[in-house]
């Protein structure tokens, strides 16, 4: 039996085999970064444009370690605090040769780093008009995610929890609504703590996962990269396979005969 899913993942016209995107920041060493990237099977990597040597990409501190491996670059605007800044950063990235994908990341609050929804929408609208493939990082508000889709986002990336917190999917209900409505891929970005959060997001119907801190800061980033890769696959398969309904009791038998214990519960089958 062929157990491989025929399950292409298309963003901005690119067909991807992996649904797992990785951020390259905060790794303990470039050797660990390289091994984690390899273990993750990722095809799309993200990094902050402000930290890149835009004069000479081949010479850049981080990019030199990931070049020539066939990655799609998803430069991000992290550090931007409004749409104007984000648009300027995106243009800098494109003219430096980083391609036309851009992750819009606009945070106004220095402690939570929560995305600014209004500026994110504005930047998305403008960058789409400028022919970027725009993947906005946003809060997990279903209406906002829908508006970003309407604005032309190639994928929408709601956070499960504030970036770097590892708190997991704080509002599974919202994420469920977001994926139900969406006609573009939904990639859960930010808040992931460990592999179980990845599985949960994928079972809820997310199309992909973007992670950085929970891998880079894990005690063993290479193992965590592999664990999350498997979790993405497991969660996706589980979603497609369809789970059984949750029930209160082990047996659905309506036969009273042969029952070992009487019970006074009022709930039947789920």
């Amino acid at each position, binding site marked *: 039996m062929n157990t491989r899913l025929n399950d292409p993942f298309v963003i901005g016209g690119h067909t991807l085999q992996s649904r797992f995107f990785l951020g390259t920041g*905060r790794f*303990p*060493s*470039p*050797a*660990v970064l*390289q091994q984690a990237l390899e273990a993750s099977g990722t095809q799309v990597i993200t990094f*902050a*444009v*402000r*930290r*890149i*040597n835009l*004069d*000479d990409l081949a*010479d*850049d*501190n981080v990019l030199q*370690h990931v070049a020539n491996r066939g990655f799609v670059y998803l430069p991000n*605007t*992290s*550090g*931007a*605090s409004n749409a104007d*800044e984000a648009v300027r*950063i995106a243009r800098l990235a494109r003219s430096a040769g980083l391609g036309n994908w851009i992750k819009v990341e606009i*945070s106004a609050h*220095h*402690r939570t*780093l929560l995305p600014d929804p209004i500026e994110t929408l504005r930047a998305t609208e403008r960058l789409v008009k400028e022919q970027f493939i725009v993947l906005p990082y946003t809060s997990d508000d279903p209406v906002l995610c829908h508006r970003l889709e309407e604005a032309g986002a190639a994928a929408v990336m709601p956070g499960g929890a504030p970036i770097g917190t590892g708190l997991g999917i704080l509002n599974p209900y919202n994420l469920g609504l977001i994926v139900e409505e969406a006609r573009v891929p939904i990639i859960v970005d930010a808040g992931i703590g460990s592999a179980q959060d990845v599985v949960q997001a994928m079972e809820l119907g997310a199309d992909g996962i973007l992670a950085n801190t929970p891998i880079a*800061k*894990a*005690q*063993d*980033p*290479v193992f965590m990269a592999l664990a999350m890769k498997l979790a993405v696959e497991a969660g996706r398969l589980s979603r497609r396979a369809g789970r059984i309904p949750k029930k209160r009791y082990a047996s659905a038998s309506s036969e009273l005969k042969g029952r070992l214990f009487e019970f006074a519960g009022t709930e039947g089958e789920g």
Partner: protein
Amino acid sequence: MAESVLVIGGGIIGLSCAWEAAKRGFRVTILEKDTFGGQASGAAAGMLAPFSENTESPDPFFRLCLDSFFLYPSWVHEVEEASGRRVELCRSGSLNVAFHEADLLPMHTRLAWQQTYGVPCEMLSELELRRLEPELSQQAIGALYCPGESHVFAPLLVDALMEVCSKVGVRLIPHAGQLTKLEAGASSGVSVTMTDAGSWHADRVVVCTGAWSGLLEKWFPLTLPVHPIRGQICSFDGTLGDIRHMVFSSQAYWVGKNDGSLVCGASEDVAGFDRSVTERGINRLTKWSGRVFPFLQGSPPQRSWAGLRPATRDGWPLIGCVPGITEVILASGHYRNGILLSPVTAAMVGDLLEGKAESYNNAFRVDRFSRTAERTGSG
């Protein structure tokens, strides 16, 4: 008779631990494969920068760096007094320079938590920055300024530590060659054989073999994921212009040394144990130097060199006793901060030799990469 201690590896970590052990009354011998300070420790830029090196959060590693930073002035004073040498501790302060408006938000985030650790830091406007560091490129728009961060001249510090070690009676054995045997047992103590220095026996051993520590894995019931990361570094003629602070940017840093040179470092190369300098590696630093300090444009460095940093899987050092063989203490994996971390590492190793409990909630325990493997054993 006093207990005897063998220290393996004569970089700054080995020398600092040896000195500390001797001061606490142990009889100490250091076995160095080649020459003392001939590896990473002699190559380092000597920056003592716990804030600039820890930009994310106040985790145990930051605490370790900070504790060592606070120990430094009196530690250096003691080294200088006892050796009669200067190690050029210089409180230049540091500037983390912003070149994009987007650099400012992360700096504010950093400042917000770092400010609470007893060392003043502040954001500088473009104008204030120019006043402090006039030769910096016009593209700089501000900086996070930490006036307390300092630097030493690492090769001089290594020399001075060798001196203080000899003065307190530590035996320094250079050119000992490869380690071919390391056996330890509770009653028998520790036996070590080196190809060019014969066999040695002691009650305890402290392993400080830097980037080569992973190669010793076979002697211990441990997973030791220490790997070398090459750092290429160069220096310019200091008469070309003035750099007053340690200046950090995303691609490189600069430090003005007392001997008049301007040091610029450093690459992070995945190159195994190859310690050579490459044209590309140094060109990267030279080109970027010209961008950040226009007076350096087009001038070739006077000197360039490289060292192998001991990196670990989680970026934190390994400092502790080997479980089950407490005669063996490891102190390795200091990666980018071994110069800074010398005093605190020495203090921790001194405590371990005296049988005191491990500190920092065992965050730096040496078996942290082996724990799950152990659990699958026969237990």
